[in-house]
């Protein structure tokens, strides 16, 4: 039966995410963006919520089971606080969740406990490649079987925490499909380049990575000989980013709404003019719709059904919604929207990443 009511447990998690987003993310968002570094409190306080271990069964060191729906509910709230902070906090998911979803029993036993620790551990994934017409299904980075090993070659970009992580999940074309490989820090031939300088997501350390004849044992291919369900991982990633898009859109919308109520022009609040009021009405309508698209896609994933279409539609719709909401918020604030004393320009820069950069989040 159709229902739009989260469970009591989900409401508690959403509530905790909301508090963290307000107290730690939003308050430090601007400084972190200017400094180009994540605030230490983001991962320190965020890790205490135990969101990742809550997805991992006890036998692998966690205390729960995976739910995309719960993940997207929390992700929206967190991204409302700050997108860079959310991506930083959720970076360990990039290794852990693909292992949970597609790993062999040995991979799960060996790796998942590494992410169920007291303190935050870095994790990373390398999917994006710096070329026109990037398509996750036809990667340029290649993995070739040589004896008992795979040899990886290629260039990656937008790799979060590449320098800081002990493990990086590298996506590469293998036997005509996109596959994933668990690569430890210090693998010969793996070069982490300098920090990328991007339009937004400045507080999130993103790196360029080069792979030159990187040799890793065949047992480190995600899912072993059978490989992984790449579509599933991509869908889960898109759904996660979609949820975050809703959060960013809502942040921008709420700020603009507040401004429209209070800013006076010609003797009345600017929100009393239809041009402003209708803009806000359109944004909130799309935000509500975007959220429902995300929920449906996440629910489909949780039902273990093919969510390719749902995830793709949600991803397209939410990335547009987030960008439009942020852009309209800048427009409604006028000159104030353009200066960095106000947060809306930051949301516009961050929102621009959505729909372009993928594979940097999964819930």
């Amino acid at each position: 039966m159709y229902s739009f009511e989260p469970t009591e447990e989900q409401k508690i998690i959403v509530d905790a995410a909301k508090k963290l987003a307000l107290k730690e993310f939003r308050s430090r968002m601007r400084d972190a963006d200017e400094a180009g570094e994540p605030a230490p409190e983001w991962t320190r306080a965020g890790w205490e919520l135990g969101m990742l271990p809550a997805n991992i069964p006890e036998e692998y060191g966690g205390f729960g089971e995976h739910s995309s729906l719960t993940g997207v509910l929390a992700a929206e709230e967190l991204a409302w606080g700050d997108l860079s902070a959310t991506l930083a906090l959720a970076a360990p998911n990039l290794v852990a969740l693909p292992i949970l979803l597609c790993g062999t029993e040995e991979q799960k036993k060996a790796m998942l406990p590494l992410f169920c620790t007291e303190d935050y551990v870095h994790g990373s994934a390398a999917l994006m490649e710096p070329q026109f017409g990037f398509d996750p299904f036809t990667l340029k980075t290649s993995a070739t079987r040589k004896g008992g090993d795979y040899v990886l070659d290629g260039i990656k970009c937008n790799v979060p925490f590449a320098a800081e992580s002990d493990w990086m999940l590298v996506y590469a074309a293998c036997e005509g499909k996109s596959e994933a490989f668990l690569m430890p820090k210090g693998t010969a031939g793996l070069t982490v380049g300098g920090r990328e300088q991007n339009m937004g997501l400045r507080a999130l350390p993103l790196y360029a990575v080069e792979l030159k004849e990187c040799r890793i044992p065949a047992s480190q291919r995600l899912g072993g000989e059978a490989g992984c369900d790449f579509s599933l991982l991509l869908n889960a990633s898109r759904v996660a980013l979609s949820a975050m898009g809703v959060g960013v859109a809502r942040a921008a919308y709420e700020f603009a709404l507040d401004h429209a109520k209070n800013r006076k022009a010609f003797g009345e609040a600017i929100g009393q003019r239809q041009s402003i009021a209708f803009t806000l009405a359109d944004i909130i309508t799309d935000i509500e719709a975007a959220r429902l698209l995300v929920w449906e896609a996440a629910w489909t994933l949780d039902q273990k059904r093919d969510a390719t279409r749902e995830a793709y539609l949600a991803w397209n719709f939410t990335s547009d919604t987030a960008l439009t909401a942020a852009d309209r918020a800048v427009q409604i604030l006028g000159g104030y929207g353009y200066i960095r004393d106000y947060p809306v320009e930051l949301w516009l820069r961050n929102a621009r990443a959505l729909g372009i950069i993928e594979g940097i989040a999964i819930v």
Partner: protein
Amino acid sequence: MISFEKSKMIAEQMQYAETVAREKIRSQARYYDDHEHELPWEFARFIWDEGRMTLDCLRPWAEVPEEEFMLQIVTTEMISWGDLGFFMCLPWPALGGNAIMVSGTEEQKALVRDKFRGDKPTWCCMALTESHCGSDSSAIRTRAVQDGDSWVLNGEKLFVTSAQKAMIESEGYMVVWATIDPSAGRAGMKPFLIPAKTPGVKLTKLENKLGLRASDTAVVILEDCRLPLENMLGSHSTKGFKGAMATFDKARPAAAANGVGVARATLDFLKEQLELNGIKIRYGVSRNLMSSIEREIVDMEAQLRAAWLLVLKAAWLVDQKKPNTLESSMSKAKAGDIATKITQKGIELMGSLGYSRQLLLEKWARDAKVTDLFEGTGQINRLIIARRILGFSSKQLK
């Protein structure tokens, strides 16, 4: 627990409605578009005899299902997918029926239920709009004056959907909004129940329309129309204007479902045609690799799904007995918008074939336009949304 799983009841009703749409509606749609105001009697009798779509307030004999309104909404979407003109001809209580259920006394509700349990297809209609006022419905001039033990109504009503079916073709009802005190504004607005064959009710004109041609839209004149006192819906104490507005909380998701249905018909047809021409939509690939047609389809699909989910949520709130004014306006504003755009796009993508009356695309575009007009235009619904989110009154945000 959040769920997008259809219940068995909903799934079965959708399947049933789809069969009706395919077998009883689609092939007839063009004929009734060409023969404006001709009532598809065969269809109406079929629906009446089957009894599976005489929904909403008409279930006193069975237990009211938990998803009562959802059932109405999915039926609405599916029959509209078949044809919007035919949907308007469904012999069910529709807007007038909803008004009675919202504002009526138990006796009045029972009276109407009896009508809809008879042998012959029956319709209900509602008259609100007047020549000088549409969206600002509290400005109506139709007067109701108490004269002894009766009300006497005088005035002219416009755009009365299904008036011909309710008052001439069947022995149904019309719900007429009139003011008992013009100086009182909204407070003076009251709904009255006028049975068919009541003297003093005249249909003077059936409008010729852009679309929705199978459905009649009439001008109704009330000339010393005398009604028993008990024909005022509810009683003096019940909220008049608010009653009209509460009716919209259900009517708007339904109108949105109309739009979604026609838009889906268009999109389904387009995808079929693309497949016949060897074009497959590659969900998931980079947008940069898509053809412009693929992009158009994917974008339309996302917009359509977005609108439909808003409708489902607004309908779910009704069944949960929770307020939904904001959500129902959102669903209506969105659906009216996308229905217009998607049906126009349907013509564009098919080119001259789309423009030809051999196909239904051009008809769907004409039909769909009404979903951004009736039950509150797109602008009015945006106004309602905006007032709610900004916390402004109708005086602060005009």
